[in-house]
């Protein structure tokens, strides 16, 4: 296993930085059900980190812990060197953690542009008076943030649907808009919850390309959950494997692929 404090160099020659986020002995329970049991792992700056596991392994719960939606009963979360206090989800977002959702959670009543602009809300500070008059800081902010959003829209190639209501878009595009909304906030850590669920091969290829490009061009740290093993192994630098709420493997795709516990639990017979 790799050292968890220092940076490292990936096989394709990208320099990965130090630890950005560290989860220490996280345990999460719902009533009597233990969703996550004593899991620790870290995420390095600039890497693509995958969390995999069979259904019900606790992957989504893990992501929800990272994004502050669930508060674990035990364990500590360190973000950028400091222990994270019990924060509300929106405060976590303000620290620079953005995410997408497994079952698309776009704001259906708004246009694509407005959805992407909501990603900038954490950066908009104009007061109520200024907003109600549409003068001064409010107008300036609106234009500045619009420019950032337009860059993201360009990047993800969704210019033509900018003013379309989200509810009219097909599934694949919705996923992309969701990514745009998360990117618009210029996150330090981007969480992707099954970014390729329910997509056909071409859409998956597009999405993989976008994920790699995001990581490459903006240097964004990405943590993702995915079911498609091929995609995970191709995309990610390091992989955490979960099963029944426990961590059973952690390392580079190659290490994980050869880990006996992982093979038993997940990849299993197909590797015979």
């Amino acid at each position: 296993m790799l050292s968890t404090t220092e940076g490292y160099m990936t096989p394709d020659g990208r320099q990965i930085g130090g630890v950005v986020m560290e989860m220490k002995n996280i345990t999460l329970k719902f009533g009597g059900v233990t969703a996550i049991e004593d899991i620790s792992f870290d995420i390095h700056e600039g890497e693509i980190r995958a969390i995999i596991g069979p259904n019900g392994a606790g992957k989504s719960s893990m992501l929800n812990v990272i994004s502050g939606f669930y508060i674990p009963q035990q364990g500590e979360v360190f973000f950028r060197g400091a222990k994270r206090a019990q924060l509300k989800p929106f405060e976590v977002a303000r620290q620079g953690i953005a995410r997408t959702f497994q079952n698309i959670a776009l704001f259906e009543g708004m246009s694509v542009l407005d959805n992407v602009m909501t990603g900038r809300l954490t950066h908009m500070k104009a007061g109520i008076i200024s907003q109600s008059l549409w003068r001064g800081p409010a107008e300036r902010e609106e234009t500045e943030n619009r420019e950032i959003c337009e860059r993201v829209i360009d990047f993800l190639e969704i210019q033509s649907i900018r003013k379309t209501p989200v509810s009219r878009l097909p599934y694949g595009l919705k996923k992309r808009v969701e990514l745009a909304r998360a990117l618009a906030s210029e996150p330090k850590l981007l969480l992707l919850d099954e970014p390729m669920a329910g997509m056909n091969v071409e859409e998956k290829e597009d999405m993989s390309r976008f994920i790699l490009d995001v990581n490459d061009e903006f240097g964004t740290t990405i943590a993702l959950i995915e079911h498609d093993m091929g995609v995970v192994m191709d995309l990610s630098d390091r992989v955490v494997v979960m099963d029944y709420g426990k961590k059973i493997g952690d390392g580079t795709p190659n290490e994980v692929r050869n880990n006996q516990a992982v093979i038993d639990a997940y990849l299993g017979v197909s590797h015979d």
Partner: protein
Amino acid sequence: MPEQLFFTIEVILNGLMAGVLYSLVALGFVLIYKASGIFNYAQGVMALFAAMTLVGIMEGRIPFAHLINAILGTKIHHFGWHVNAVLALILTMGVMLLLAWLVQKVIFKHLVNQEGIILFMATIGLAYFLEGVGDLMWGGDIKMLDVGIPQGLNLWIDETTYNMFDYGFFIDNLDIYATVIAAILVFVLVGFSQYTKQGRAMRAVADDHQAALSVGVSLNFIWIMVWTLAGFVALVAGIVWGTKSGVQFSLSLIALKALPVLMLGGFTSIPGAIVGGLIIGVGEKLFEFAVGPLIGGATENWFAYVLALLFLVFRPQGLFGEKIIERV
């Protein structure tokens, strides 16, 4: 000071009996909500409509007489016959069945899978519509309803308690009957939903529409059935309230009394509706008795709401509701 104590007990007893009626109305809400996710604001107006129809049929009024007179210039009002209470009751139940069918066919068939709050607003629209129809059909006057339930002070209780405690409890016969009727109805409904095939289907639908569909439960049938049941509950509530204070617009406001009961008991819980009703009934009578005179009286208008509101702030799922686990 035993006098004061007895008086308090009397207030509590009256509160309990009022509470049973609140529970009854609340039950109508719970039935529909559980099976279809519709929070039926029109429940109160349904009670009014049912009572109006009952009176109208008993007195042999011609439906829409005012409208017909206005359009054709005629002067018709009555058929000139009187219908026996039992027959009228059966006919009214038929009308409520028809209403349930229409409501499902015309409105909620088209609103399947809409958000709860849209459905709620649709029932507010339905309430207005039904109020207009009721008035247009049977006239907007205050009607007396008498189906043979005795009214007035129960002398036996008054005398017995007077002999025992030197203090006669004032309890109205109508309240006693109403309590008994409501209690029976509650038992019947609970029994129906627990032990019959249709009841089981109803609970299945409440749990999961799709799953119920997949095992061959007809959603349409179940929804018409719950609306009919709610219609019957409304009819009973309408009879009791109508006997008490006449059939008039204010009768529809009992729905407003039942809402805080629901907030307290949880929208999906039958025991919640019963216990919530009792708590609100006793609570508002006691509050009015103890605090009302100090702050100007008529606190019954809002006490239930404020109580339910405060309660909800601390326990959002209500007394018996399940804890809400949010997911993304």
